[in-house]
């Protein structure tokens, strides 16, 4: 299950990287619950997967506001289908 959250995080970072470049990865590395090894496109979540995703989305929201939240939702849309609604990170609901 944690793997899906890690994939969601990776998808979000990937999409933000396509928008703002290396800044996106720098921002992701500031989320303490995420371990980002971006040269290998590898993301691990240490604890509280929903909270980790929320923190990541908050990081990008700080840059772009609601527009960032919408693009994070878009990036994660397909993977979110694999979760039950109660498992959704609150920022992506």
């Amino acid at each position: 299950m944690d793997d899906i959250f890690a994939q969601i995080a990776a998808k979000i970072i990937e999409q933000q990287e396509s928008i703002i470049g290396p800044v996106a990865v720098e921002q992701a590395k500031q989320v303490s619950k995420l371990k980002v090894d971006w040269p290998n496109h590898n993301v691990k979540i240490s604890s509280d997967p929903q909270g980790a995703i929320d923190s990541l989305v908050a990081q990008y929201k700080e840059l772009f506001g609601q527009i960032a939240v919408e693009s994070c939702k878009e990036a994660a849309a397909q993977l979110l289908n694999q979760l039950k609604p109660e498992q959704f990170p609150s920022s992506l609901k």
Partner: protein
Amino acid sequence: MLLSEIYGIVALLGGVYGIAIANKWGYFKSYFGKTILFLSFGLLLQVFGQVAYTYLNTFRHVEVPYPSYPDIGFFGSIPMYILASYFLMKGLGILAIIKKKPLKLVVGIIVPILVLATSYWFFLKGYDTTDKSAAVIFFDFAYPLAQAIYVSVALVILLSIKGLLGGLMRKPVLLLLIAFVAQYASDFNFLYQTVHETWGPGGYGDYLYFIAYCIMGISLITLTGVLSGAASSRPAIQDKGDA
């Protein structure tokens, strides 16, 4: 007169500065990197246009060198601005926003039509091709129509992001969009004055370009400021997420 000969320096500084900071945004690998680079190329092409215009006007005593070498820069900057505005639109996900909100879709269709219609009305309605070379006819049509594209994109973005764009990028993005509109206003005025044979160095049109270049330069500087702003805001974000 002096301003018309030196304000290109503002565009030169802006263009060079933009290329210098684009690496922080991944150069051509990200939408914002592309926006910054194409905007910078546009500014540098404007510089070429200004230098060529000043040379022909001041040293070769050509009253209005049109169409001529300056148009390589002036006209060449338009596709750069179109690309810059297009990648900004892609980066902000405007197409997705427009698709979700029917009213914004209507705005997205109406705005370009209005801008094109205005350009046509001012510059091309009843256009007489008599005694005009093919180059003059081409530029007379291509300038207003091509410029209408980038300002339309900028206006569509401006109207679509209302209530959605926030955070540290809000100010630089808004400045960038205002810069496109200011550049369009300058170009529009240049064409208008050229058509009515009232354009001359040192006129108010030069001040319009000066203002447009300054806004573009400031938007690039504020984009750099975002990076340090993001760095200083990190602990607060983490606390929020960890709580």
